[in-house]
């Protein structure tokens, strides 16, 4: 299959780069929602991974049950369901914030962290009890299985779509936060809730909104993952949540382009570590990268250098 004279190590390197970018794209997507919520509330939403799983499962249910793909053809159906998932998971995020976080907003931050951990255990087991502990699969016809061969690299089309989707969503979020009025209000609440309230911003509404956008993005990421890999499981949120959190921290938590950068860096680091050092140590490389970056840049790559309280 391989023609003589071909530069094998070089091709493998680029193939691994492409592998890493795909995984990184997913991390970045999950990290986007994480970082949104954190940026505004300074709350590590440990249940974000479970909302991501929820999105993946709801996406599967909708794809299977409504028979939409039969009427509309797979592509429009997938797009419509995307919108529905974003809405539904956003709604769950809204409920979650009301139930588990709002009562704790005035208390110390770690109380909210433990509440988030409890919520994450609850949601994960709820999903397991509802959908069963087995792997679930996405219908085969909704998956894009075409693989492009570019310059000796095998690149599945789905990978390109996935990467594009995460870049687009990141851009959209960035513009939303920085160019719209609501976005300005969100930034105001993130900077100083008291002052924002004095400026006539309904802080509770903004926080609810953020808790719909963040989880909504997470849900959409879950469905993208389902479409990309084709199979999902109730406990996958833990790992993706953790990786996304790591990615958000690497990029500087609260920073939207940072989440993207962190996610991609993490994905590439994992792929390279797995390929050239030892595959079984893959996650260890991810965390090693995190530690090394934080040693040299204690607030992440793009994180603001928070001035010490003086």
């Amino acid at each position, binding site marked *: 299959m391989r023609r003589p004279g071909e530069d*094998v190590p070089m091709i*493998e390197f680029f*193939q*691994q780069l492409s*592998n*890493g970018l*795909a*995984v990184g794209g997913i991390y970045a997507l999950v990290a986007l929602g994480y970082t949104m919520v954190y940026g505004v509330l300074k709350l590590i939403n440990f249940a974000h991974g479970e909302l991501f799983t929820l999105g993946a499962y709801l996406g599967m249910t909708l794809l299977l049950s409504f028979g939409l793909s039969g009427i509309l053809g797979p592509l429009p159906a997938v797009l419509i369901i995307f919108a529905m998932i974003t809405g539904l998971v956003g709604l769950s995020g809204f409920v979650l914030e009301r139930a588990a976080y709002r009562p704790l907003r005035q208390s110390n931050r770690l109380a909210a962290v433990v509440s988030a951990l409890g919520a994450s255990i609850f949601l994960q*087991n709820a999903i*397991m009890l509802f959908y*069963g*502990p*087995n*792997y679930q*699969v996405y219908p*085969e016809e909704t998956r894009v*299985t075409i*693989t492009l*061969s570019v310059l000796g690299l*095998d690149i*599945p089309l789905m990978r390109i779509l996935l990467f594009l989707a995460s870049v687009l969503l990141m851009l959209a979020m960035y513009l939303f936060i920085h160019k719209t009025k609501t976005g300005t209000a969100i930034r105001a609440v993130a900077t100083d809730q008291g002052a924002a309230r004095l400026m006539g911003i309904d802080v509770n509404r903004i926080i609810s909104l953020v808790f719909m956008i963040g989880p909504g993005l997470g849900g959409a990421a879950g469905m993208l*993952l389902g479409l990309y*890999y*084709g*199979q999902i*499981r109730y*406990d*996958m949120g833990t*790992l993706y949540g953790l990786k996304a959190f790591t990615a958000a921290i690497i990029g500087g938590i609260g920073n939207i382009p940072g989440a993207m950068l962190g996610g991609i860096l993490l994905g590439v680091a*994992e*792929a*390279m570590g*797995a*390929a050239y050092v*030892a*595959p*079984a*140590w*893959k*996650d260890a490389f991810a965390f090693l990268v995190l530690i090394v970056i934080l040693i040299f840049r204690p607030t992440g790559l793009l994180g603001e250098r928070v001035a010490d309280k003086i």
Partner: protein
Amino acid sequence: MKKIFLICLGLICLLNSTALGAAVKIGLMAPLTGAYASEGADMRRIVELLAEEVNKAGGINGAKVEIVVQDDGSDARTAALAAQRLSTSGVCAVIGTYGSAVTEASQNIYHRNGIVQIATGSTSIRLSEKGYERFFRTCPRDDEQGVVAVDTLHKMGHRQVAILHDSTAYAVGLADEIREGLRKGGRTNLVFYNALQPNERDYSAVLTRLKNTNPEVIFFTGYYPEAAMLRRQMRDMGWNVPMLGGDATNNTDLVKIGGAAAVEGFYFISPPMPADLDSQSAKDFIKSYQDKYKTMPSSIWSVIAGDAFKVLVAAISSVGTEPEKIAVYLHKYLEDFDGLTGKISFDDKGDRVGDLYRLYRVGKQGEFVLQPR
């Protein structure tokens, strides 16, 4: 007249309650939560179904069977507590559990409390090397599988072999057995021996690496989800090379996860599938399982838990509920018992005797086709 009637009624109640009090209690320690939750759900269904059947037929020597279920949480600490709990709930024997490390954490507790334990999915060699005389297993051991695996690889005639495991206790054990066997055979060249990280979604990095070592055949010793994803991602890469798996890939979800097109042509060695069980009792059992739950058991391991129950019933009906006697009976007197998964006898260590392994190939529709020996 009325008085007599009442007295009779009272007596019946009394008899009933004594009969209930004398119920034979059998413990089931299964992973109802945690990583192996899907296996646990099936184990429970099967053992409870079998117990129901025994009870319908009048119980064991007239005594009803009662199954006491405890969750081992797929982890060692919870299992130790579950074992402690079962030990004090009056069971004479315990069926379970699936994971080797989980079983290991409970073994000494049952041992000290003098309770018979029959493991159902724990294939680690170490478990039966401790000299616990009341420990049994109805599943085979890892070394047995290694021999069959090496044999199969030799028969297939490929020279460049890659072995991939997932760092779990079971997979490393099997991978080492195969590596050793191949080295002794001297007919093959091991081009790749490494691990992937389980519970991931993306294996493209390790696959790309693997592809560049040009293996003619890959043996993956891990579990079915990873095997299925590997196949799927190999197909996405446009790479087609024969691949074999160990018995942990034997699960109908293999096809569900990987998709029939990608998994077709995958070989695995395993004890026979639930559907290929050829004895009449097994066929009857599978039928009643399907009637009740509308699906097939998703793996053989839960059926093996059913076998554990069956040998216990056989033992208890001949020697009673004394754990010592049950153990002696299982060691010495149980010969070629007609279990669901074939003939069952135990050796001195409590391991199941007999070759259970078959070679399977995944067909076009994703069906598991038993290969002729």
